């Protein structure tokens, strides 16, 4: 039986912050309703989801007002709730796929026979064609996200709470994963709350849209009303919400050159080539992918696409000279090589590599080295030998365009998911490296910050940098005029 969710001037303030992360806000979600929760990056969407799921650690902050799931404050130990978090990597619980799916069912006290059969069903429903004893450590980011969803699918909870459930899933299967989520919801008629930046993917399938601003709920109602109201459209644009009927929502954002035609032609200089390149994680005996032939020219954008687990991130790390080639060679030439003794970037010293090839990792936290956002942005240009004035200008520009001014003095590790993502991209982009390699650069962005990122990518492309982007976001790849390279299937 589904449960309603009601908030009465509910708010949450993190222990170390002055302002509330969420609210105060009022919510009234009926039992069995499907709700899409929208709002700008940093508006507290994830925190609200955690509060509803009842997993906010009491000692980490202070709650105000009242929040009820059914007629009691949220308590996950009642076993009514299934939660999938934003970060797929940190929510893998066990080292085997089957055990991980079984975890929730075991907690619910299901008999062992039921658990076994449901593991198979749920893995299949989420398109995870893996044996139950497959090690979870060998899964890609997208596969881990499916695994977490499979765990919830198996529990068939009464309240389903999902934080960007399709963010790491390749676009070709995003719709299928969404349908599975909807099927799970339909089978249990659970109340469902989703945070998702891919508005178009969900809009026709939800009953209710709630737009969260920094000062509580900005708008709510049935999707058609929220998105059909001309008075609201300006509010939505200001909140950076993709407005669906504008198709490419990016068009609604001012100041962005519209897509590929705005890009200059490349001067034809080849900076990075590979021949029959095979890539593998360090220590792996079997390559993630093989036979890649690439020619990357200055000023050119290349999108690396492919299904989850195809080896896209590993390819990116290999191209960036961070892990050795498994097979074949990555070869730098022209201005990129610029007098280096070795043609392989992997052989370059760190200080030589960094100003030439920038790499943005899938998890932004790994890259942060300084204690404030602006110092983080200044580091790259500073190491590249820019003058102080040039560095300051560049930092100010990036802070402004990417909407990071308000957090300029904050610690990078304390930012929201979307803000961290932008910062990690901006920090690598700051010294305008000859080649910039990025892994899922638009993760967790709203329409405004997305447009800011596109603008910055186009800026460095115009200045002759090459961009290699691993991305499921085809709109982004279109906007920067990227040609696609499909990374093949796994070697069995």
């Amino acid at each position, binding site marked *: 039986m589904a449960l309603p969710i009601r908030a009465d001037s509910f708010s949450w303030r993190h222990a170390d912050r002055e302002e509330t992360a969420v609210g105060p806000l009022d919510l009234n979600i009926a039992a069995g309703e499907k709700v899409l929760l929208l709002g700008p990056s940093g508006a507290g969407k994830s925190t609200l989801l955690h509060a509803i799921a009842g997993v906010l650690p009491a000692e980490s902050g202070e709650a105000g007002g009242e929040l009820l799931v059914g007629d009691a404050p949220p308590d996950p130990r009642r076993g009514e709730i*299934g939660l999938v978090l934003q970060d797929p990597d940190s929510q893998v619980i066990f080292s085997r796929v089957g055990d991980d799916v079984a975890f929730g069912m075991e907690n619910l006290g299901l008999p062992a026979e039921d658990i076994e059969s449901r593991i198979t069903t749920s893995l299949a429903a989420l398109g995870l064609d893996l044996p139950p004893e497959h090690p979870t450590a060998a899964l890609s980011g997208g596969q881990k996200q499916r695994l977490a969803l499979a765990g919830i699918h198996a529990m068939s909870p009464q309240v389903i709470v999902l934080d960007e459930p399709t963010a790491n899933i390749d676009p070709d299967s995003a719709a299928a994963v969404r349908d599975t989520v909807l099927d799970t919801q339909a089978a249990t008629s659970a109340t469902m709350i989703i945070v998702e930046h891919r508005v178009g993917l969900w809009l026709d399938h939800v009953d209710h849209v709630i737009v969260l601003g920094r000062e509580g709920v900005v708008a709510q109602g049935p999707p058609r009303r929220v998105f059909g109201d001309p008075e609201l459209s300006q509010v939505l644009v200001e909140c950076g919400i993709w407005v669906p009927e504008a198709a490419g929502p990016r068009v609604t954002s001012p100041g962005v050159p519209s897509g590929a035609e705005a890009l200059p032609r490349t001067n034809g200089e080849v900076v990075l080539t590979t021949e029959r390149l095979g890539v593998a994680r360090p220590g792996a005996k079997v390559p993630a992918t093989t036979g890649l032939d690439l020619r990357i020219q200055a000023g050119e954008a290349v999108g690396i696409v492919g299904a989850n687990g195809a080896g896209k991130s590993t390819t990116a790390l290999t191209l960036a000279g961070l892990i050795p080639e*498994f097979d074949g060679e990555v070869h730098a030439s022209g201005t990129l090589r610029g007098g280096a003794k070795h043609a392989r970037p992997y052989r370059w010293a760190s200080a030589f590599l960094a100003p030439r090839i*920038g790499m943005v990792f899938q998890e932004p936290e790994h890259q942060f080295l300084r204690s404030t956002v602006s110092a983080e942005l200044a580091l790259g240009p500073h190491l590249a030998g820019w003058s102080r004035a040039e560095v300051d200008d560049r930092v100010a520009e990036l802070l402004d365009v990417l909407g990071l001014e308000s957090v300029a003095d904050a610690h990078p590790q304390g930012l929201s998911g979307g803000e961290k993502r932008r910062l990690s991209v901006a920090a690598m982009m700051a010294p305008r490296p000859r080649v910039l390699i990025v892994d899922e650069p638009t993760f967790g962005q709203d329409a405004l910050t997305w447009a800011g990122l596109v603008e910055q990518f186009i800026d460095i492309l115009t200045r002759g940098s090459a961009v290699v982007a691993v991305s499921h976001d085809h709109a982004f790849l279109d906007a920067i005029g990227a040609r696609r390279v499909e990374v093949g299937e796994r070697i069995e």
Partner: protein
Amino acid sequence: MSEHTLQHSYSAGSAGPAGSAEVTVQDPGQLIPVVRSTALVRCNPLTKIAVALILMVGALLSIDLVSAGIVLAFTLVSLPVTGLDLLAALKRLWFLPVGALLAAWGTAILAEKTGAVVIDVGPILMTTGSLDAAAAIFVRALALAIPLIVLASTIDPRDLSDALIQHLRLPEVVVVSVLAASRLLGLLVTEWQTLSMARRARGVAGGSLVRRTSSLFGGIFVLLVQSIRRGTTLAMAMEGRAFGRPGRTWRRRSTFAGRDLVAIVASLGVCVAAIVSAHLLGTWNPIIGG
């Protein structure tokens, strides 16, 4: 080189005896990968721990070549039964014989000098008596370490936690939390690799010693932050799937079978044989009481 290792990984599975189940994808977290599922691999984790302890007793009680030699010989002969990738084991555990050799070297020099002089070069004086003691230390160190490491490598942590909860009645919330956290511990290695890559990508790896040191501390800080963040997220994810709810059930029953009895009896036999032979041959040299 890469081609060679690739071929090896393919042939490793097919070289096993017919009917043995192959493990196609290895868990990167394993110390020594299990490549074949043998009767010993399928034993209950508690049995494996018992076997390791029993063998240890055989080698531990006395410092002598005979008892330790019998335990070590049995261990080495039974290695194929463990289903481990022995080549990988050799690569990862090379330090064991080296360490044992160092201990033996120290003993040979420092032990009581009885018997005939074998080597006398300046400060280095070795006699047959001190060399005997050194050999016993060497063999005993290996006889103590190898069974434990080898058996621990064949234990799936999940099976162990099942056994601890279902047979030894340890509190489930604690065991499951430790189990989940231990997975994160394994991730630290990968995490550190990624962090090193990230520092290299940002241009702060290498360079002067001062720079390396400051970059190292930066890395450690990030690792700490990441660990705490991951821990918090994992706790949320577990709670978010009803962890802590009373009445938890178990996907698998942890059971004992005939093979568990065989393993225990065999190891007991070896242990007794080691102690009895040492007494019969007069080499028994107990660590306590003497």
